[in-house]
């Protein structure tokens, strides 16, 4: 294959003009939400942590007498913090979403600090579906896409249903395998 290392633009022979205004637009994308149970799982884990913290506080207050008059203040603070984090979790859950196009996959996440990451299918090297014990309980799975760009550019979509994850994986494999065989000849 002599085209491998060709440094010229590819379509030097069929060089029809492409109007920038005709390119697919990021602004028109409708993002699909992720599965609601993920929010429940996250909230559950957070509330467990805070319940433990509450329990710890109560025990501490019984043991150390000087702290006892601050007990209500500490508990209130704890509950306030929990509320704040839960609120963040709900907000960021609502913001999260993914979209699959013909040639790439998009994933947006975060809430105060927002990120959008786009991975073209023809750069994906490896795909993985992960399902931990908690995921299994709530019928969830996550899909991980690996590129050669290093861990900070890899993409992991959490909170998919197992069938969703498998479907996306199959779709990408079908899209990418054609390119793959092209290259490995």
């Amino acid at each position: 294959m002599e085209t491998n290392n060709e440094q010229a633009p590819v379509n030097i022979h069929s060089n029809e003009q492409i109007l920038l205004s005709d390119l697919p637009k990021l602004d028109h994308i409708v993002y699909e939400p992720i599965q609601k149970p993920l929010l429940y799982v996250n909230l559950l884990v957070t509330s467990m942590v805070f319940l433990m913290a509450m329990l710890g506080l109560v025990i501490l207050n019984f043991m150390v007498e000087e702290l006892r008059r601050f007990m209500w203040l500490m508990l209130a603070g704890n509950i306030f913090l929990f509320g704040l984090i839960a609120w963040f979790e709900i907000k960021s859950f609502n913001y999260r979403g993914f979209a699959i196009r013909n040639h790439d996959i998009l994933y947006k996440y975060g809430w105060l600090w927002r990120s959008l990451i786009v991975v073209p299918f023809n750069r994906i090297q490896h795909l993985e579906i992960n399902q931990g014990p908690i995921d299994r309980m709530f019928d969830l799975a996550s899909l991980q896409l690996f590129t050669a760009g290093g861990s900070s550019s890899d993409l992991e979509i959490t909170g998919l249903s197992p069938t969703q994850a498998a479907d996306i994986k199959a779709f990408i494999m079908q899209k990418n395998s054609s390119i793959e065989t092209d290259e490995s000849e």
Partner: protein
Amino acid sequence: MSLNSTNFFATPRRQSPVAIILAVFKTLRVLIRQVLLPFILFVVLGRKGNNYGMYFIVFVSSISLISMVYSIVNYYRSYYYVVGKELIVISGIIGKKRLSIPFERIQSINFEQSIIHRIFGVRKFKIDTAGSGENELELSALEINHAEALRQLLLNNSLPSKLNTSNSELSINPSDNNILSLDIIDLLKAGLVENHLRSGGLIFVFLWWLYANLQEIGINAEDYVDRMPAVAYGAALFFMGILLFLMISLVISLARTILKYYNLHFIRTGKGFKISQGLLNTKVISALDHKIQTVAWSDNLLKKMIGIFDLKLKQASSKTVENKESIIIPGANYAHIRQVCRYLFPFEDPDTVSLDKVDPSYLRRSIVMSVVVFVPMMGLAVFYFNYASMAASVVFLVFLIAMSYLAYKKLGYGYTREILVLKGGAFGDKHVVTSIFKTQSIKITQNPFQRRRGLVNLSLYNASGSETIPYIEEQKANSMLDYFLYLVESDQRHWM
């Protein structure tokens, strides 16, 4: 049996026994670095000290001993051989690990020779392959003729278009297609204008470490300082100290530059570049055009004055973002850089790409950050009513603001359908030219402050790292992302 026949490598072979010496030497070096100095300090100076130091030394020594024994046993259990069109390496003491590398996946074959290699006439044999996971194979010592024969065998049986077919001798012939060679004068020049603050930082860390160790042993350095007779001496000592500090960092910079880049030749091969360098450790790195993701060059104030740059060709590597996979050339001038760019981007001229500026709030934010650093410093200085510290804080603030301003002034970005060009730097200059179609993924991030102004950061990740354009308008970033995605997705060329 002839070395050149395939049969020679068909039977499993061990590496040269020099591999054991290398392994032992490596362990010893770690041991010395970690243990010997504390040990000397401990024995010579330590009377008041407790026993923890001793325990630590015993612990580290026994671990080193175990690892030494491990590597010796491992040597006797490791073999390499060739079956069909695959190179197979077996190793492991408890479980057997079998690594097979199909010839067609080999991206590059490199040799390396340290001083020990040279004494025993062996070479380190390195193979880099494509794909994710474990991508590198290293045979730490092969006899030179075995290394050559194996390389020839791999070359003859793999795709000629993919591999660098030119001779990977340890000394390259600079007459063919030489781009630049550095003689000792060039190296002295490059060493003199190195960033001395960095070498100075190394010394500082070492002194601090020494100080901390002395403290631990029970020598209070401050006791001695207190006994210094007068302030006049103090001032004299201070300036002598600075002078000494500068001189030592100069010497270290020079020594490092010369050791690392001695006899440097940078040449153009058929479809790539090749560099050989090093006084004690001779190294040949080759980089094929399609593996190079980014070209970057930078200078500092001193380098700017004599018109030289550090040139860096960043290669795709299995272990991402590692410097050792990059070709770094100190003391390249602008003509050399233009030549390299012409080879890599024949249809583009990075100089003529028009650059856009980022939003002014980028400057505003770095000034705010400078003030955030300044306020507590000033607060402390006022609290202790120390005029010197107050003055120092103000100077520091002015410095930070000047740096922010320069950084904002110099920051610029632009692109064509092939390349993304970034300019930056504060006191020095930084230039980055990266192939857009080699991008692996694109990210847009936005913090709460940026959201109010409708700004975002745009990052392009490729197989050798990432480049970020900060503080650009959201609409603009979105359309750039659309365009870059189109370029990446419609391109069939090899990105690695």
